[in-house]
């Protein structure tokens, strides 16, 4: 079952970087690339630093895949899958997120 909820308006996002939203008690990092109009969402918790900081990382791409680099120890996480590039045993929750009109909507039911 999928359930989309609006978390904010597009203009609350930061172009080419991330913000953190509180959704049903979860910290969700939402990243926004205006040029391609893409949005990505991962859990905000960096398992290496054990801190809620991923929304503050630099985003970009590595070998064509969109990534965020943790601001603390700089591990890279795939923005689509949450997989860590440096350690394949580590994967953080990635969520479906979309822009509907000007609403940013998220679906927490990831599998």
């Amino acid at each position, binding site marked *: 079952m999928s359930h989309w909820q609006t978390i904010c308006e597009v203009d609350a996002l930061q172009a080419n970087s991330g913000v953190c939203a509180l959704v049903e008690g979860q910290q969700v990092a939402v990243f926004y690339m205006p040029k391609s109009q893409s949005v990505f969402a991962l859990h905000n918790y960096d398992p290496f630093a*054990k801190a809620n900081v991923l929304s503050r990382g630099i985003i*970009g791409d590595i070998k064509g895949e969109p990534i965020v680099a943790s601001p603390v120890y700089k591990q890279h996480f795939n923005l689509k899958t949450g997989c860590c590039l440096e350690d394949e045993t580590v994967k953080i929750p990635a969520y479906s997120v979309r822009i509907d009109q000007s609403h940013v909507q998220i679906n927490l039911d990831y599998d």
Partner: protein
Amino acid sequence: MNTSKKTLVVIGNGMVGHHFLTSLVNSPIKETYHIVTFCEEPRAAYDRVHLSAFFSGQTADDLSLVEPGFFEQHGITLHIGDKAAQINREEQTVLSDKGVLIHYDTLVLATGSFPFVPPVPGHDRPECLVYRTIEDLEAIATVAQKSKVGVVVGGGLLGLEAAKALHDLGLKTHVVEFAPRLMAVQLDEAGGALLRHKIEHLGVTVHTGKNTQLITDGEHCFNKMCFADGEELETDLILFSAGIRPRDDIARACGLEVGPRGGIVIDNQCKTSDANIYAIGECALWNGMIYGLVAPGYAMARTVVADLASQPASFTGADMSTKLKLMGVDVASIGDAHAKSQGALTYTYQNGDLEIYKRIVVSADKKHLLGAVLVGDASGYSTLLQYCLNGIELPEHPDTLILPSRSDESGGLGPDALPLSAQICSCYDVSKGDICQAIEAGCSTVGDLKACTKAGSGCGGCAALVKSVLNSELTKQGITVNTDLCEHFAYTRQDLFTLIKVEKITTFDDLIEKHGHGLGCDICKPTVASILASNWNDFVLKPELAPLQDSNDAFLANIQKDGTYSVVPRIAGGEISPDMLITLGQVGKKYQLYTKITGGQRVDLFGARVEQLPLIWKDLIDAGFESGHAYGKSLRTVKSCVGSNWCRYGVDDSVGLAIELENRYKGLRSPHKIKFAVSGCTRECAEAQGKDVGIIATEHGWSLYVCGNGGMKPRHADLFATHLDKETLIEYIDRFLSFYIRTADRLQRTSVWMENMEGGLDYLKSVIIEDNLGLCEQLEAQMQHVVDTYQCEWKTTIEDESKLKRFKHFINSDQADDNIVFIEERGQLRPAETKDQKHFKLVEVA
């Protein structure tokens, strides 16, 4: 003491004696010996080759060749300031001036030489001096202070170096040479004449063919020199540099064989006529030759170590080729410079316009290079030396080696043409094979190679060759030294700097569209952000710049392990009023911040949540504080000592200068962080010699040191310039920093930058001081722009509502991050660790 050990005594702890000790302790046979050394001078071995640096501000400590703790660590007994007076070969004992009596099993004589002073009447007058030890230089400095004119007797290598020293000390300087030309040993007539011309041009008067017969009272000066031809010369100071004589007296007295004109006779194993006694260095006479250079002495030292270890080793003579810069003039001499070999042919190139003279001496069959003389341009030295030393066959027309290449074809000998056995560094006997081995073992920079093989760390003459061997080997191993910044840009940081500057690019998007591909990453974005800031100095949190900033710059604070931040206000020069200190305390208290004095003379406030940063900064700015840029790859602190305002030793106002410099360069973004310090006198309480830019006050103005750092790989700064007034000092620092910012790699501190620079410190001086790239004006303008456009980034931020948006933990809630938990320790808060949760009461922070 282990009595089964034999005793090895070394007489003389000079350059060669010490090289012997360092080679010995690296050899397994060191275990078999108890080692004792007598050192006549009041200090252990120092770098005599660079003795003149003493006049440009280097201290005895800077010149020391002894690694800290060397003697203790290796259990070597050092009798400092104690001269060995007598050797008893029957009893095998040495007796010292201070009465130490030691039995030896093996004895090594490394007593060096003394400057020869011709016995002309008056040679012992008080202003007659020599140039060999630190004490000699101190004496020269003292006499020079009351002198106007100085004469150096002797126009050889050392004499000319001494003349430069006198000239630099401000004396009207003359060189008096007995032979008809300068550097008679190394140069031919035409070479000598050109050198003379150039040196006179610099203001030193040269008198050749002069035989001094008497030194007596002068009329205008302290002394007058009278020559055989009836001429006279008035002078205050007289410096004898008329050759050296081996110190063989102690050997002579115990009956060892010495040469007819002095020198302790040694064989190919450096053994004297007594099988238990070796002699090495300038005191030794091998095959009728005394070698007055370090490299042959070092080779002798290594031969003795090998011989003691029963390894086959021989000293079979040494190359006396030399290359040096005398008063700014390049001079080099290789092998048989005078074409004395049978049937030798010579080729000469003389350029009267550029004042260059080059001559090569070639074997009769034109196949081999026997010798060369270069004056005015010694750039071909390495290549010629390799042809000569390694018997490499000459090209069909040998003169192409000295003719200027008007086309692209260069007469140079690529490193590939050298055999593996070719000696690259003669100071440390490092062959091309040794270098290749080190490269295979992982060395990939000149710095690595220096550390690993020592090549290039002696006289420095081989640096360019070491670099070219390195490059060619890396290329051969298929290690294309990939210098691309990252997958998004096929450029180096330096390339990007130029592109951005020349094309006036101001955004990352623009740059990546024109010169890169993809979206960018956490390597290229901060790098470009830094270059943009260095060039244009725009506010770093402008919407198009903010996403590029590294973790700390992105929030103008240093991120901590739990996702909170630290706050470091600027305290320029470390000077702070009681009121400002109280404010810091109040702010710390109000926001319950952990408060600590940093290693950089200021105060750090830890544990601020992202949403608290603007509130804290509002309080600080209201009280008059500014951002301290602790978060940036930028100027950090200019540390100061208390200086002349208070300190009884202070020579100048170090605090005042530190504050002025910190305020000038604050906010400057650079490839890595930059730290300064200013000390008020040579006691150096501000540790300026451990900084990227260090300044020390002296009686004659400021001394500038550059390229030092602490941290992971500490490096002492190098003395860059002395006697500076404040304006010149700032001019040099402007240029230095701008040049660093333009040409360094990402995250390369000034030390590594300089060490990897071809030509190193000398090159840097030529760019910054002599402006030989013609860049200085641009470099100063680049800096002035940054100085003129400074803004306190925190002030700009809190004054603009829209900038504050990013300082929130949640975009859709005012709650705080519940993962941040503190506990109390020693009366302050710190982040709680998982293990703490059982033992301490967690503190809820409102």
